[in-house]
């Protein structure tokens, strides 16, 4: 029998004996028997030097390993035999302590970030600009007629004749074009203001607008971009519907509906009318269009020749997107900041 075989045999024998030990005294005896100074395994290890050189390393390492394993087994069996004392049962239904409470981002922040992430992924950057804005950037640069009703003091907050609280984030697009020649891919999220206050309007709200100006950007590109947005925000199966509309800063202009995620073609499973889309099967989500040449004309000197560049722009309300996704019944809930509302969303 080789030394290696003997070590293996010793290990099998010892393991069986340790497993079968029933009291600590017996275990102590086994320790002496197998690992004590004068027992066989240590003797064998001490005699490694007299072995054929080709066997020394293998026998030494196997012997040491067996010794460690047996020591660990004896300790484990000891602990097992001490049983009752370490096995105290916990009431595992008690809460964690100290508590690690969950905090929350506001639903508007969470929704804004979700939308930002979609467009970041599509290659857009995030542009920002002031909320107290020049009348010129807020209206003139965006092809808003001098007599357009949105300029009225009933529709816009004025600081002075030349300064307003921006009514949309579109001036950020103008600033972005002034700052950088095409190609330009930006979204502009932010707070905007209009003097309305009822269940469907708050005097401040949040928008995300987008702008893409590049070689040969088309209306079909706008459709594809918004389809990607709709699917990531409202679900993989969504479709988009572009309806012609009118905005002063885009031509052609469209309103964009997203197929309702709450129903099939306007009806719920039980055959009743879908309350979300009111039976139409579509949700009105945003406005968009191809940038009007007059808007490019305003920033012509910055590399935007209305004869040669094309681009698309879109804009949506963050509150509305969140409302659709989460069934928020009243816009004012967003700004009451009731903790019972805040704690329902944006867990971190």
């Amino acid at each position, binding site marked *: 029998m080789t030394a290696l075989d003997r070590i293996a045999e010793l290990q099998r024998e010892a393991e069986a004996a340790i497993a079968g030990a029933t009291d600590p005294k017996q275990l102590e005896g086994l320790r002496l028997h197998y690992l004590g100074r004068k027992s066989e395994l240590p003797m064998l290890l001490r005699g490694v030097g007299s072995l054929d050189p080709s066997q020394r390393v293998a026998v030494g390492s196997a012997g040491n390993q067996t010794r460690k394993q047996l020591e660990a087994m004896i300790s484990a069996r000891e602990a097992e035999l001490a049983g009752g004392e370490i096995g105290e049962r916990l009431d595992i239904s008690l809460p964690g*302590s*100290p*508590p*690690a*409470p969950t*905090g929350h*981002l*506001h639903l508007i922040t969470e929704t804004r970030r979700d939308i930002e992430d979609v467009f970041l*992924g*599509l*290659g857009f*950057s*995030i542009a*920002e600009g*002031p*909320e*107290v*804005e*020049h009348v010129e950037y807020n209206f003139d640069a965006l092809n808003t007629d001098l*007599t357009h009703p949105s300029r*009225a*003091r*009933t529709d816009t*907050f*004025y*600081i002075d004749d030349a300064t307003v609280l921006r009514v949309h984030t579109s001036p950020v697009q103008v600033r972005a074009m002034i700052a950088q020649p095409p*190609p330009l891919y930006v979204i502009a999220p932010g*707070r905007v203001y209009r*003097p309305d206050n009822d269940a469907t309007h708050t005097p*401040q709200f949040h928008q995300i607008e987008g702008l*893409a100006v*590049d*070689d*040969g*950007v*088309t*209306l*079909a*590109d706008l*459709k594809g*971009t918004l*389809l990607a947005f709709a699917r990531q925000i409202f679900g993989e199966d969504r479709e*988009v*519907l*572009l*309806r*012609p509309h*009118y905005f002063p800063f885009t*031509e*052609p202009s469209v309103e964009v509906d997203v197929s309702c995620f709450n129903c099939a073609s306007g009806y719920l499973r039980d055959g009743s009318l879908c309350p979300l889309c009111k039976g139409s099967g579509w949700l009105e989500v945003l406005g968009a269009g191809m940038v*009007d040449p007059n808007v490019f004309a305003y920033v012509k000197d910055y590399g935007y020749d209305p004869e040669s560049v*094309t681009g698309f722009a879109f804009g949506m309300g963050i509150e509305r997107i969140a409302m659709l996704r989460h069934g928020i019944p009243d816009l004012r809930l967003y*700004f*009451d900041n*009731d*903790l019972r509302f*805040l*704690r329902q969303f*944006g867990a*971190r």
Partner: protein
Amino acid sequence: MLVPVEWLREYCDPPLSTEELAARLTLTGTKDERSFRYGAKKPDHLVVGFVRSVAQHPNADRLRVCTVDVGEAEPVTIVCGAPNVAAGQTVAVARPGAELPDGRTLTAAKLRGIVSEGMILSEDELALGSDHSGILVLAQGPTPGTPLSEVLPSGTDVIEFEITPNRPDCLGIYGIAREAHASTAAPLAAPPWSDDPGTFSGDAGGVKVTVECPDLCPRFTARVFDQVTIGESPLWLKARLLAAGMRPISNVVDSTNYAMLLSGQPLHAFDLDRVAGAELTIRRARAGETLETLDGQVRELDSDLVVIDDADGPTSIAAIMGGARSEVSDSTTRILLEAANWDGANIQRSALRLGLRSEASARFEKGLSPGQTLEALAVTTKLLIDLCGARVLPGTIDVGGPGPDAPQLTLQPDRVNRLLGSEIPSERCEEILAALGFDVLEVDGALRVHVPHFRRRDVTREVDLIEEVARIDGLDRLPATLPPRNGAAGLLTQPQRLRRLAEDALAARGLSEIVGWSFADPALLDRLRLPAGDRMRNVVTIDNPLSQSLSIMRPTLLASLLDAARYNVSRDVDDVRIFESGTVYRAADVLADEHHALGVLLTGAAAPASWRGGPRHEADFFAAKGLLEAVLGIAGVEFSLERTDWAFLYPGRSAAVLAGEQRLGFIGELHPGVAALWELGATAVWALDLGLVAGAAASTTAYKAFASFPALREDLAIVVPETVAVGDVIATVRAAGGRDLETVELFDVYAGEQVLPGHVSLALHLEFRADDRTLTDDEVATERAAIAKALAERHGGELRA
């Protein structure tokens, strides 16, 4: 705009249901807001009846028992309460099963012992007018049993369309019919104004019209009629007006309204005998001038308003409201019929200022085409002749004329596809534009396009033509592609990334984010006890706020944080831990000084209690400071606090947050006087300018090797006078401990019996480690001695055994 579908189909009748038609027009840009049924829900069970005989009901004084022939083998018995029912009348009968406009479904019913097998209907019950004093008596002729719908407009679908402001041509039924024609290819009937019984030569009864303000009234047209007989309009006309949402008044007024609904151009009829001097002058009002309008109100005018004068002075406010003096009445026999074009923006402002918006002003304010005036005049002329027995006098007054021709545009078909990403052939572009009323001629592969007068304001460039092609061809046919994205990156900037990290750090520590109002009450500044001249008093003020209490832009996030805290505390939430990440505003020479701030507010307990007990941590300075350390730690900003008294913070428990010399914000416990104003107890807050934090943030950090030699640990107890700042003690320990002192941690602060009065004992845990060898006890003892010496010299401190 309400469009009775039955009326629309007179001009364009595509083989589509109402629902399909509405859906098709929605896809081409005329959006269906809602649709409904006006009048009888369906034509079934509504028939013409002939009253054979009428007898008194035996059990009821007010009821009559009629025998009515309804085209069946035997006449039926109908109980009727109308006073005017009589034998020999042809009437409208609803049989059991009929669905009436008010939603009732008729059944045979016993009335005081007699079974009535139907109902003889009044105008009101058919939704053809408001008259319910008696039954509707029809003209003799139709055979009993004839479906009522063949004799009367008994009901129609109505679609309400949203008309965008660039399309005033769609504010008339015929304009919608033209859209339906282009969208469905169903034929379009000739316009209703193609048959004009009026003439253009003659002096129009000698009436004189002068326009003094052609800028506000580019065109004024009129015709004169005599032999007018005022009366009621026929049922078909009343039915159409009602379905379109207008109340019938008299045949003359109804004719002008009908023509307006059809053509989009409002008109006005004057009683010519009450137009003094048979002359009209259109002029700007004089400031301070007053006029009594039709509604009996005396209104003060200004020079932005346009009035129409006769020889006796103002008779009406142009385009907005007629005057009582020259209104058509029952005795009118001569009429001056006017159709004018006004400056849309002026009308809009005027209507808004006077609080008078009508179907007419709503159309004018969109800026109609001067060409529409004659169209509406033609339609009304025909109606006045047909319905009122009127005679039109020769001649048409026309001041201003049609204005310049719309310019000719050129459309390159390849530019259509380049902008849209489509493959629409040139012939299709031509077909679409022609269907919309444009004259198109192909010249060398390009389309030469003449814009019709009714699209003159809206279509002025090639891109406007492209839009027409796009919307009619159908955006649903466009492919969905992604833009080329040359040079696109899609990355957050460093400040944007930091903002997210900071927000996440606070939320991860159990705080809830609020989104507050940017608006604040100017009284906020006093409530925060801000002294005169404080930077935060330099606020942005809104010139036209919703209310005084929302008239400034918040100069600090404290405004919304405090409001949100109060809101929740008043709803029995004891512990409020919130933050806000948003813009604050201060006045500046140009625009405003805005920055993105991050603010925290804690009140109540700083952390939820554990069932294991342990001390309750109050929301105090140190609870707030822990969060500040977390956020600035994430940003990699080395910061210090500088004791500073802020007006709204607790004296002695407040500080400025500094990065080097740069002030990033403040931290402290709220002044109890301030907290009380928001009904809060002890409250701790901080706010940072995140832009400045981003500026101070560490850039990419380089790797620093760490040693694997063991550390020597040492605990120190130091007694120092209580006036010494712990931060200074730690700084001294660090400085004196040398380069091998790796960690200094404060783990206890004690004042009491065991230490001298006026002193405090600090317990510090130190770790020494060298990166090139294992330190010896002797080496550490030397460093410890150096620390003790420095503490004694700098702070009068002493090591305890």
